[in-house]
């Protein structure tokens, strides 16, 4: 599903040029659950931004679903993103002025889903995340765990092929954290590809494979569970 080759990204200020990604290459199979680990500043988040089509690489190739997307303009990236990728952030990033229902509904609005269908799909996913009873609440009225469940609901409501999770449990206590990890696992088992950036060895163990990074490069790769995709693709 994802194949990156010699991916490069620099951050330049007037005086210093920092290399965030240094000829990074790896592949992710459809249906796989990959954890990316590494110390702060190793380039994990930059990688996730590029994979999430939020940012453009400075060099190398990025093939998503068989299409070369490196060099896509913002409009094309936005279009590809909204149909294919769901995001889960450490700080939830829910919109405070919208209710739980409306937050989850938002991606469907941007992909042009009709109101009646939107309602059905949002209800369904809220039910699945067990926060239906909170649908009319605003984010500030929820606990951290509940907020992250809403964020996950929002990430999956469009049935994305890929979920990118950036420290999804970073702001949560351990029991809430575990709940969120269970949710992600369930989604993965249902067929969604997941790439998760984390600092937590505990969370990483939920994945099939751990990619460890340092200074923008891949250092090691531990396969925890052999994952066999039923379809062979890059």
């Amino acid at each position: 599903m994802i194949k990156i080759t010699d991916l490069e990204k620099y951050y330049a200020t007037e005086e210093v040029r920092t290399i965030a990604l240094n000829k990074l290459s790896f592949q992710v199979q459809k249906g796989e659950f990959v954890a990316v680990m590494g110390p702060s500043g190793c380039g994990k988040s930059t990688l996730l931004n590029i994979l999430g089509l939020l940012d453009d690489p400075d060099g190398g190739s990025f093939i998503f679903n068989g299409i070369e997307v490196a060099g896509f303009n913002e409009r094309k990236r936005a279009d590809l993103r909204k149909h294919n990728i769901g995001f889960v952030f450490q700080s939830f990033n829910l919109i405070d002025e919208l209710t739980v229902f409306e937050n989850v509904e938002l991606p469907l609005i941007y992909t042009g889903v009709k109101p009646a269908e939107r309602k059905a799909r949002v209800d369904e996913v809220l039910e699945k995340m067990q926060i239906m009873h909170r649908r009319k609440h605003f984010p500030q009225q929820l606990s951290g765990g509940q907020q992250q469940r809403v964020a996950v609901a929002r990430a999956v409501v469009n049935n994305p092929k890929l979920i990118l999770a950036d420290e999804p449990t970073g702001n949560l206590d351990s029991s809430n954290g575990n709940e969120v990890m269970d949710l992600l696992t369930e989604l993965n088992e249902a067929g969604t590809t997941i790439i998760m950036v984390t600092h937590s060895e505990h969370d990483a163990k939920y994945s099939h494979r751990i990619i460890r990074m340092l200074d923008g490069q891949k250092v090691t790769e531990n396969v925890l569970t052999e994952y066999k995709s039923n379809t062979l693709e890059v």
Partner: protein
Amino acid sequence: MLKNYIKIALRNLWKKKGYSTLNIFGLAIGITCASLILLWVEDEMSFDTVVADQELVYSVPTNQKYDGQWRTFFQATPGPLAAALKAEIPEITQAARLRSTDFLFSLNSSSVSSSGSFADADIFEILNLKFIEGKASEAFRVKEGIVITQKVAKILFEDPTNLLGKTILIDQKDNFKITGVVEDLPENTTYSFNWLVPFENFTYDKPWTQEYGSNFTETFVKLSAGADFNSVNEKVKGVLPAKTGDEDTQAILHSAKNWHLRSDFKNGKVVGGRIEYVQLFSFIALIIVLIACINFMNLSTARSEKRANEVGVRKTLGSDKKQLIFQFITEALLTALLAAVLSVLVLILILPAFNALIDKQLSLGITIPSHLLSLLAITLICGILAGLYPAFYLSSFKPIDVLKGNRIQAKGAGFIRKGLVITQFVISIIFIISTLLVYQQVQHVKNRDLGMNKENLIQIPVNGNVIKNRNSITESLKNSGMITSVGLSNSNILSAGNNGSGLKWQGGDNTEDVLVSYRYINDEYLTAAGIELVEGRGFSSVVSNDSANALITESFAKLMGTESPIGKTIDRYGDVYTIIGVTNDYLYGDMYGTSDPVMFFNYPPEAQYMYIKTNPKYAATEILNTIETTLKTYNPGYPFKYRFVDDDFNARFKSEQLVGSLSQIFALLAILISCLGLFGLSAFTAEQRRKEIGVRKVLGSSVAGIVRLLSKDFIVLVLIAIVIAVPVAWFMMHNWLQGFAYRISINVWVFAVAGIAAIGIALLTVSFQAIKAAIANPVKSLRTE
């Protein structure tokens, strides 16, 4: 999607009530100002629209050449001109004369005085009068026919219908038959009247009105459709010289479209008029809207960090830039819409006061489609103007920057924000300076030495038997002890009045080219008016003693040479007058101008006005009662009308006063809006620097130190604004003042006052937030980080 935008906009507005209030109030003030000005402009622009075929209708003023310069006079055409124009110029299909006067209408036992005009029948068509009763073609068949407006009909008759043929007694001597009732003319009409009678009623006993030598009436014409203005105007110019042989007096055409807004002439050509005020205030409306929008832009972008997260999330979830721009503009429009609703409420409340101020009867008429559309247009412009920059700014955030929690480094936005604050203050300071200077200039002229004394001077129109009984009236008034002198004159003391040229005297070149004002007065006029004799003697109370003598003013004396003019003679169209006295110069006509020469004749029967000098020891009401009783005795049947000359004098500054009061109001509002913006921005800055303030306090900074820190940046902006505003204001006001011959010189202190005021106001606004932030407990601010 739109629903989502509106929903989130409303929630945002509700959640940030403080900011929303500032935004809505700022925009509401802007919209209110703009609406008031537009209502006024609409009224000004709608003048004389009652005249059908405006582009074909013209009044006919005359250009007269004096000292090589054309001067334009309204109400100054000879009697036979109208008929000649119609007869000799084929494109002129209608021509009529109009001369206004007051009549006393008596019906049964009641009397009412009303202003109207002597007119020719063509005036009905030219001014598009709508007959409710009678016919235009028949109304003036008889000399004693009178056409009245509905208004007069309602005043005179209990049942104002079927009035044709009814008789009204006029000036207690002539019976007129009603031959027509016309619709009232709207307020916004330049030439209005309550009644019309055939012109013959004025001319029948005045043979001189049949000659080309006297200019005494207004003339109006209507051209045939498709006539070429320039060629007709040239033909009109040629008519008077052909009749009189005098090339220096020409009639010209002045379009009905220009009657109200473009009636100032310079060297014989239209140069402007009220249109300048219309343009000025339209511009001011735009400026006020602009500074209101600036508030919105500043507060929105200042708050952008709070919205950045939402932008990031939306972009991540698939929103593109266009959708975000649309969303933020929707928000701005919604705010503008709420502001518009508020401003409609405010307009309803303040319109009566505004009407009183500008002396008009404007109505909001929100249901009138053009008004509603204008309001919507202003709202739309406000919303888009205010929302566009924030929309582009906010929507350009990169989601990764925002979501990573990077602080939005909006250096550009900060720069623009500062620029906008400076712009607001530049405008406010210019307003303050202009307001001060307009006020000073008006006061300057009002306090000017007029060469006469307008205090305790009452002006009464001369009518009925006043002239006949003038000696008894004077005696009776003086006996009361309340009145010191009673003067008579043919001209309003403040007006340009009757003038002419063609005098001959010894000791001057081209004396016939000098324009001199003529005053027919009595012996007490100079005393009553406070005009002093500087040489010689005044007139005798016995008219015949001085009927061949004249008085002149000093400026006239100067034209006659350096030696004393006493005993010299002036030849006026063959009549020779001997000068017996010289008075000081006094000001009349243009109060900003200079004192032009005057020649006085001892001939009270020509008097139109009585000037009564009162004893200031008595109360005005008591004095007026005495005058009224006396006049009722010697001139019964005429209602008592009077004016205080100083009121009349003040009324001459109506446009200047209007500009003065409006610019005061707009200056205040501009400052208020700017302060609202500054208040919001300072609140925002204080909030943004909470942590810094906390750290500084922990490290030992005093409250005053913090206040200084937070206020400093804003004061720098105001200082920059002062530097920009002062030369601009100086330039503008210098140009404005050039329009007045008698004017103030611009003092530096005006700029100092404006600058100090701006700094003071800004400081007051900013320090409120600064103090609030400075006295807050630092522990709290540090903990929340």
